[in-house]
């Protein structure tokens, strides 16, 4: 009787799949919070990497020479920068290498604006590689016959709401 009453209270208007697992709860109210979930296909989908970043097709060896055009926008650019900056790497590079080279050319102040003390770009610095959000700074940038294109811009606003 108590079980039926509680069923009504908890929502008898739900479909049969939604059931307060009171039977299990009553006899086993010590189901570990982290032991409840079973892995499902949906779980895999949820934790997939977002489809907003890409590596270039690896048509050449990661250590092959690469030319990268860098476009700096907003206050990363300005009068001292003529877009695009063309960077040449004789033995390939990664995005981290691109940032290091930019730091050498534009000075430590530039790097302080885009990279934190631990070497990671600030979240406020949006970097795209060939039109997609740069995924991993350590991944080698490999090119075929085209030049890789990097864009950088800062979104530094801090506002509430």
């Amino acid at each position, binding site marked *: 009787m108590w079980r039926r009453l509680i069923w009504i209270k908890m929502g008898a208007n739900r479909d049969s799949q939604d059931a307060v697992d009171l039977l299990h709860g009553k006899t086993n109210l010590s189901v570990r919070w982290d032991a*409840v*979930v079973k892995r499902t296909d949906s779980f895999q989908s949820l934790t997939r990497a*977002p489809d907003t970043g890409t590596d270039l097709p690896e048509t050449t060896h990661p250590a092959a020479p690469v030319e990268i055009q860098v476009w700096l926008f*907003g206050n990363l650019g300005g009068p001292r920068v003529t877009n695009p900056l063309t960077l040449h790497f004789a033995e390939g590079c990664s995005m981290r290498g691109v940032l290091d080279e930019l730091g050498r050319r534009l000075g430590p102040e530039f790097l302080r604006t885009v990279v*934190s003390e631990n070497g990671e770009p600030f979240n406020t610095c949006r970097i795209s590689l060939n*039109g997609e959000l740069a995924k991993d700074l350590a991944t080698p940038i490999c090119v075929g016959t085209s030049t890789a294109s990097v*864009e950088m811009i800062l979104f*530094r606003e801090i506002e*509430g709401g």
Partner: protein
Amino acid sequence: MNVGVSEVRSQRDDVWIPSSCALCYCDCSIRVHRVDGTAIKIEGDPDSALGKGRLCGKGVSGLMSHYDPNRLTVPLRRTNPKKGIGEDPGWKEISWDEALDEIATVLKRVRAEDPRKLFIQRTTTVLAVSVPITSFAAAFGTPNLSASGGGLHCGNAAHHVSGVMHSSWSIVPDFEYCNYAIYFGASKGHSAGHAATSNMKLAADARTRGMKMVVVDPMCNYASAKATEWVPLRVGTDAALALAMCNVIVNDLGMVDGPYLQSRTNAPYLIGPDKLYVRERQTNKPLVWDTSVEAARPFTDVAAENMALEGDYEANGVRCQPAFQKLRDHLKKFTPEWGEQVSTVPAATIRRLGSEFAHEARIGSTIVVKGVTLPYRPVAAIAFRGAQGHMNSLYNFVAVDLLNQLVGAADVVGSCLGYNPVCDGHPETGLPHYVPTAEPDGIMKVGLWRGFHLPYPPVNARMPETIGLQDVFPLAMGSPFVESDDQDEFWEKFELPYRPEVMINWGSNLVLSVANRESIARTLAKYKFMVSFDLFLTETSNFADIVLPDLGYLQQLDSRTSYPFYWCSHPAGMGDWSWNIRQPVLPPDGQQRGFQDVLAELVDRIGIRADYNAAINARLLFKPDYRLQGDRRYSWEEICDADLKNNFGPQRGLDWFKERGVISWPKKPEEIYWRPFLEVRVPIYWEFLVTVGEQTAAIAEPRGLKIPREYYEPLPNFLPCLSHCCKKPDFDFTGFYYRDAIHTNSYTLENAWLDEAAQLDPYSYTIAMNADVGRKKGLHDGASVWLESETGRKVKGRLKLMQGMHPEGLGIAACAGHWSEGMPTAKGKGVAYNELLEIDWHHCSPVNLNLDLCVRLKVSLAEGSR
């Protein structure tokens, strides 16, 4: 020709046009009935989860805002250079060309000198403005943006803590399954606020189902009126009540969800004598005590069930304890008797509430939702604007959410939910997709946020680049320093290398919404040049050099009014996702233009088109097929079309959405009850606060600014507001303002229908006082009284005596006090509570810069009142 309105013709027609409301930030989906070119009715759209087919009184009144004869229709230029309250600007009409020429000339100069000299203010009411405005700011190169009063008052703690703990902007009970909700200064589902109309139905169904709702609030207001129990408490003491309840749960009852704490919080992390994590030397990972081998090991290497939550240990040569042990010991001093003394809530009530919450949590139980077995914790502790509006707001929120964390009631069935922090995307495109992740310490980082300064991990404090000085105070979002009385002193102190010269204001009325008008007026008068996009001539636009007539929401186009889903408009819990748009129902009147078009025009005149395109690409995450190219001009319509196709496929562009207004698809349990699916932890011990405090102090104290460390302790405490410290005789009330369901910010007081409703409502335009206290003081209903603050600021209003008010409380519905001739319906209505507010360092939180919004007051009869 205004973008987006090319299809609206003056012709005979009888059509229903889907769009979205903007009378508040909920952006409910609407259908507007237009007959022969005139909008005659607005209803909700039943095909949308946003509003669920319903519309509140504000939404249906939108016609009156649109057709208000006081709407601006031409650009205006001030001719009187003197700016101040009561100064006649001497407006003259100018052409758009003249206006844009002048604005562009100024902006070009500023950009060449230092783009940071530009400061952009915007209203919180229309969320969709965020994309073009932030893109413009990024392209221009200024970090200085503010969401005006709504931004400063509303969420420095609420949004920040919700972000850290629930990867979301705000929190709400899982109405469909919650059995016991306790609200601390919140009204979710019972008034205005996030996803208000959608939540009203959800909350009503929950109450009918039998959900017990306890509302903790100094005023028996919208939520309390529907509650099972109203618990009046002293204004600004939410943390005291919450901490005492936590003590009952942890130390009296011992009812905590150990497995949850072990696996999804930093409760097992070992804490050393320096209050910081004890870390493995090679990897720097936080250590936990592994009970299976009786040794300290990195948290990644230990099964959750073997992580100690209590005890004293030695690791790396130091004595240490799990964070939960620290918490348990810390909570002991917050006895119910102590809680009663601080909050005035009886100790017996505190014990009962703590016990009810813990028992109703059903720790260890499970439930099956759409075939998925999930943890079931049908309790939720919710806080919002009431607990948020104080110097002690951070700990108010941390303490309230601790209730959820202790029993595992976080983003699982029936529990406290963030507003949609996880989205797996449309079934056909997989977009939009965002999921929280773990940073190296295992602590959760949001999957998506409003801007790019994430709530966690905090950036290192550093010398400021922003006029709000948030760089020095990394936990701050809105800042009072953009308008404070002591801003010059603090800019000097912190060596700000420039001073703001130009302001662009979009729709905000900061003279009314931020603090006392004199302080704000002084700040505004300092700007060398100010442009204001407005619908009406407001108190703030009267400080502008140029006023530009904007389109209203029935005239606007926007591709994303409900997105991001974690934000303000989309209901949480199961149901559908709905992405809606806003489209023009009516043409511009006179020379009105949409601000998006105006910004685009300025972008070209200034010469930053390529930068603006790049910013839009980055902001909207355009894939290569849809990216804006180089410095090519794109209309706002083209950008909206690209945004929609980018997310929903080439067949679902603007035309598709204009026909339907919304796209909906079902939510999955894994998206809503996502915590068990992700290996992310939240902090019940805010270890990072210690480091933030040291960094801030390292910058501030050599410059003469003492940083009180009690605000930077890793475990929550009750810290009194200034109102709690007032000992002046006769100052025996604490004033506060609350969100009125009838009005949104200061804007809707101009709406004739809403004004009429507010005049009929006994509370909207009055000062609510406890009836027994009032009568003892010889005051009566309707008496005209002065409210005076400790600093001598005064406002006048009429009393409304009510039983449902804490004896010390005075409640005023915000945000009134209009005097502008440009808003004649609003003029003189209501009580201008913000007039009582000081705005300076001493009246804000030293950790998150939250302005202290409660004020100790003296009440006296106004002359002539009997």
